[in-house]
């Protein structure tokens, strides 16, 4: 039965697309963040987002009317929860996507191996957005704006984001290293998972006037407790788990061996919202401002929020 439905859906979706292919493509090719060359036909009117960050970008660009599918984790803005869910983040309902007949799917790097090839076989254009730096986020917002014919909205959004980023970065850029604070960013406590270089979090720490003590590691990594104690972080950020679980935060606060660090001595342990720090969306700039004020309370973030 399922197969039959799939074949049926295939026929429905592919036939018009094959027909579409016969006319010469008018739009150019786009290269996405996984290095894939994607051809976009016309201006997409039916968009599906496979990541909460992409949903936030779509809303920030005023494209919500064209958004026809989201994930169960898309909770911002609240209105996104009203949209039909096609995915539990990594667990994607391909049939449902095909049935919704999207003309653009905004994916994430986790969809590289199975979801993207499956959608490609259905001739559904997929663009993966991966933003390991603020600059990359800005260019991805511009890309979505350009593809969807919202260049102006993207430009003004990016202008305001860039202004706010520069307000913070401008104040920390000239700081000598000894004024910057050693920062440890914890994503799980047992073992200690942290975030190294090549990540958005690392970029935020640097721009907020911090020195990431895990900068010698790359990406998400565990870090030996004795190294953490030895490097003596002055500020500790703990990413809360979804559903407001504060297991890791409470652990760090109560673990006797952490009491020797300057961060604990000065009560500079902060709980970070995973919906902001775990998503590369415009709100990450709120995160940058929050981080900057936690690390350097004297830093002014005017114009914020």
């Amino acid at each position, binding site marked *: 039965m399922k197969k039959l439905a799939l074949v049926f859906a295939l026929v429905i979706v592919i036939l018009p697309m094959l027909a579409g292919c016969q006319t010469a493509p008018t739009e150019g090719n786009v290269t996405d963040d996984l290095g894939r060359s994607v051809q976009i036909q016309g201006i997409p009117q039916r968009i599906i987002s496979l990541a909460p960050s992409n949903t936030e970008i779509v809303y920030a660009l005023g494209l919500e009317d064209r958004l026809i599918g989201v994930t169960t*984790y898309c909770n911002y803005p609240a209105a996104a929860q009203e949209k039909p869910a096609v995915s*539990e*983040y*990594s*667990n994607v309902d391909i049939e449902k996507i095909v049935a919704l007949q999207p003309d653009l799917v905004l994916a994430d790097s986790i969809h590289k191996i199975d979801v993207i090839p499956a959608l490609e076989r259905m001739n559904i254009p997929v663009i993966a957005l991966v933003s390991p730096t603020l600059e990359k986020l800005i260019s991805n917002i511009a890309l979505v704006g350009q593809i969807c014919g919202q260049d102006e909205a993207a430009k003004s959004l990016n202008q305001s984001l860039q202004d706010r980023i520069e307000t913070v970065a401008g104040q920390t850029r000239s700081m000598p290293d000894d004024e910057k604070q050693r920062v440890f960013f914890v*994503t*799980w*406590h*047992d*073992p*200690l*998972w942290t975030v190294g270089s090549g990540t958005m979090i690392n970029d935020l720490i640097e721009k907020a006037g911090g020195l990431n003590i*895990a900068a*010698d*590691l790359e990406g*998400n*990594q*565990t*870090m*030996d*407790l*004795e*190294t953490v*104690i*030895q490097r*003596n972080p002055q500020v500790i950020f703990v*990413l809360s*788990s*979804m*559903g*407001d*679980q*504060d*297991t890791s935060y*409470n*652990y760090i606060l*109560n*673990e*006797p*061996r952490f009491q*020797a660090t300057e961060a604990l001595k000065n009560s500079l342990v902060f709980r970070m919202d*995973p919906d902001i720090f*775990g998503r590369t969306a415009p709100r990450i700039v709120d995160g940058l401002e929050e981080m900057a004020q936690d690390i350097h309370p004297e830093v002014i973030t005017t114009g914020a929020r």
Partner: protein
Amino acid sequence: MITANYGADRGPQAGEMALLLKNRRQRSFRLYSICGMSVALVVIAILVLTIGSVNIPLGTVWKVLLSHLPLVSINEDWPATTGMIITGIRLPRILMAGICGAALGVAGATYQGLFRNPLADPYLIGVAQGAALGASVGFLLPWTFLGSFFIPLLAFLGALVAVSVVYLVARAGKTLPVTTLILAGVAIGALLMSITSYITLISDDQIHGIVTWLVGRFSMSNWEQVALAAPYIAVGIVVILIFARPLNVMQLDEEQAQQLGINVERTKLILLAASTLITAAAVCFVGTIGFVGIIIPHAVRLIWGPDHRILLPLSALAGALLLILADTASRTIMPPTEVPVGIITAFLGAPFFLVLLRRRKKAVF
């Protein structure tokens, strides 16, 4: 080894004399082996205390250690963090690795003897799968007020419940057929593991925590964990050692063992309970570390033979040694990040085991 070495062509007296001498020689060999292994264990534990991702000079390590001995007064000329790294991080971690290795080694040897099956390991009848399910449920539940002992507690309970269910399912009247026990264990284990896999899949941002729990780690081991796990493991190992002789006799055949005056069913139950308890006590804190429980008993058997009176204590010592070495590798080969200890045990254990197998080239079990 159940010696049936009576000299057939000699007189009874000569045979008895030979046996007596052989027994005495064996006993002293046993004693030397156990003593030698214990000394090696202590020496290596102290040696690995001096290495870690933070470089601390050897002399400082010694001074810190000696300063904790009674009647020794040493001027504290090292930073407070150095002292804490040695006695607050490395020492409990090494001890935890040692006691967990001992537990897994002994439990593996006991299961292999009990089931007379070379493929048996401590996780055969559901301890690991039960503990893993308990832990992963703990990752999902929002009851954080229960603190850092919440997940170990659930893992411990999960392990005991899983094995109890397997036991109750497999029991036929007053006896416990070993094959039924293994099959029930495999079936229930597979069921529990699939639930754990599902929880891992939907756990999303907790996935790092669950996966590192499953491979096993000593990263955050502390004195509290040592103090909680050690009593269970010590008592369990002592109980198992007391039953080393009955376990030897049971290698023949359960019926024959019964005729030789051993209460087979009671022995089985006690040994199962004790090895389940020590495995659960280890696994609930450090996760399901693989390979130790299966490779250590075999390696010991290859070198020292199948007599449980020597196999069990040496499996404890060798298990402790392997896990201490594996954990040292885990925290030192790619500093400052850690390589999961379960992966190291496989890398250290499997080739060593294969070399032993090749050298012996005869059936060992």
